[in-house]
């Protein structure tokens, strides 16, 4: 589904990604772990299309399309979804109004029919239940006054509404307590199908007890230095990242 080859990227002249390679196929869940500063959030930002980053080398193929050549909104319309680490508050913009507008722009892009108000509201009720998001929250302004856990659940609610091909969860577990974590993970798991895929970026192994990955990658110093099955996450939990730093530092 997505094929990242030799990706080099910088911000403000400083190189963060130094030749990252990653292959994700439909139906798979890939976890990306790594110490702080390794480039995990940078990868998520670049895939979503943040303009502050400059890609200096490499390619990203998303289902046959050159992802780096697409505008942010077109990447979303092609089926990419980023669950933000720090979802922003947008006062005055209703959560469901903007989602309906987004859904319709995505459908227009794909040549599909617009969603009817009735069908849309049915979807809202269904999907908000998935992440135990009170429908009242769903009709409020985007993330305004939401707790950390509610913001993260709102991200998954949006994911459920937009039904992406590839979802990138950027440290979705940060700031969550065990219960919130369980609800979020449950939502993600329910949305998993053989046709979609997820890249779960996380610092801690804990989330991976709930969202079980097919592959675990370690991102260190701008590259993926190690790949293994889910047990690799447990090994990192035990040994910490120093082990990786020793093995791979220049």
């Amino acid at each position: 589904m997505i094929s990242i080859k030799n990706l080099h990227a910088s911000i403000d002249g400083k190189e963060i990604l130094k030749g990252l390679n990653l292959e994700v196929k439909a139906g798979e869940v890939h976890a990306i772990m790594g110490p702080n500063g390794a480039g995990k959030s940078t990868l998520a930002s670049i895939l979503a299309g943040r303009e502050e980053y400059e890609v200096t080398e490499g390619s990203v193929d998303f289902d046959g399309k050159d992802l780096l050549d697409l505008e942010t909104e077109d990447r979303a319309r092609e089926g990419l979804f980023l669950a933000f680490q720090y979802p922003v508050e947008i006062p005055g913009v209703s959560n469901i109004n903007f989602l309906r507008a987004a859904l319709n722009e995505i459908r227009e892009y794909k040549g599909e029919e617009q969603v009817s108000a009735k069908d849309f509201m049915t979807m809202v009720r269904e999907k908000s239940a998935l992440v135990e998001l009170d429908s009242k929250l769903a009709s409020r302004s985007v993330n305004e006054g939401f707790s950390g856990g509610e913001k993260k659940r709102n991200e998954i609610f949006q994911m459920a509404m937009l039904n992406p091909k590839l979802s990138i969860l950027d440290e979705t577990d940060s700031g969550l307590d065990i219960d919130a974590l369980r609800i979020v993970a449950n939502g993600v798991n329910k949305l998993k199908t053989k046709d979609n895929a997820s890249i779960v970026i996380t610092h801690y192994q804990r989330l991976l007890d709930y969202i079980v990955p097919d592959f675990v990658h370690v991102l260190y110093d701008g590259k993926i230095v190690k790949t293994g099955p889910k047990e690799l996450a447990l090994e990192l939990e035990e040994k910490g990242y120093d082990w990786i730093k020793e093995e791979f530092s220049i």
Partner: protein
Amino acid sequence: MSELLNSTEIKLINANGFEGVLNNSLKEKASEVLENIKFPTTRTEAWKYTRLGKISKNQFDVKNPTLNSIEEFKIVGNAYTFVFLNGFFSPELSSKEFDKNITVNSLSEIDQQYLGKNVKLDNEIFNSLNTQFSTGGVAITIKKNSIIDLPIQILHITEGTKTSSTTRNIIIAEDNSQSNFIEAFHSFNAENTLENSITEVFVGKNSHLHIDKVQVQNETCYHISTEQVEQDKDSTFTINTITLNGGLVRNNLNIDVKGENCTTNLNGVYQLKGNQHVDNHTVVDHLVPNCESNELYKGIIDEKSTAVFNGKVFVRRDAQKINAFQSNGNVLLSDDATVNSKPELEIYADDVKCSHGSTTGQLDEEAVFYLRARGLSEKSARKLIVSAFINDVIEKINNEEVVHYVQQKIEERFSTTK
């Protein structure tokens, strides 16, 4: 009913000039002022941020209008409508029948104590020009104890090149009455026109008066518009000033709260682009105790346009227990957009609650990115955020058709920029 409504022709300019509609004593006073006065420069505090060169260096003339239909200029379909073309009242295009509780008179037919009562002439060039040269005006009285079911719509349409259009209207809301007004300023085939409009408003005891004012003249038009309001006790006065277009627009809103237990609401939205300039000067004068005023103005300033907000609130020495809140918020959409925001509170009483706030910022780019990352185009994202920003003011407009019209104009603006 007044002779005014029965006349079948628009007053035309005669060979020597034109007939001003105010009485001679007022015109004389205005004439005296005009003899010595000069256009204010930016060194005059009240005009510090608004240059009048384009007006002072030009010549404007009264012109006969050619328009014979106003359907496209109506904001509200079902209303009691008054039409002014180039400053002349047009009985032909206005409504023929009015609610029995609405009295329509020419300015000479009403009690002359109302005329010019609070319109200062000394050192006031536009007030004096208006007093001397108004070519059209109506006095609308809402009878005591009545509730007017339909809105009263006043349409001003200016046409031609370098046309001078001057009107003076009086609105008298008698005690215990309830009425809603919509006033719209349009242009038609107009270029570099100058409109100078004054509306004198008298809000009677325990009455409710609501005005939605919409300005949509094209970007070459100059427009000076003044509301001089006097509120008597227990009344509620609301005015929403929505400036959606225009070249140079200056709104002077002056409210004297003369009675206790009054509520005064002043709200506004201004959306600018290109080289447009909008200046909102408001004054709320709390003369007596136990009153409340609420002011909320929001601006969206794009490209090279400039905005001015100057909101003065006076709380006089005997005006205790006053709650006066003022807030001005501005979003700059470009690097060249400018806003000058000056809230002023002059408080002489000591038992009051007053606040003022002014914010000026840019669109939250993080919010724009978030919406785009969900599939919304950049334009849609910006539009959504801007609409959200002004929404709390739009909510103060109580007529659905006006809301719809305003939203449409804002929508159009977004489709044409970038």
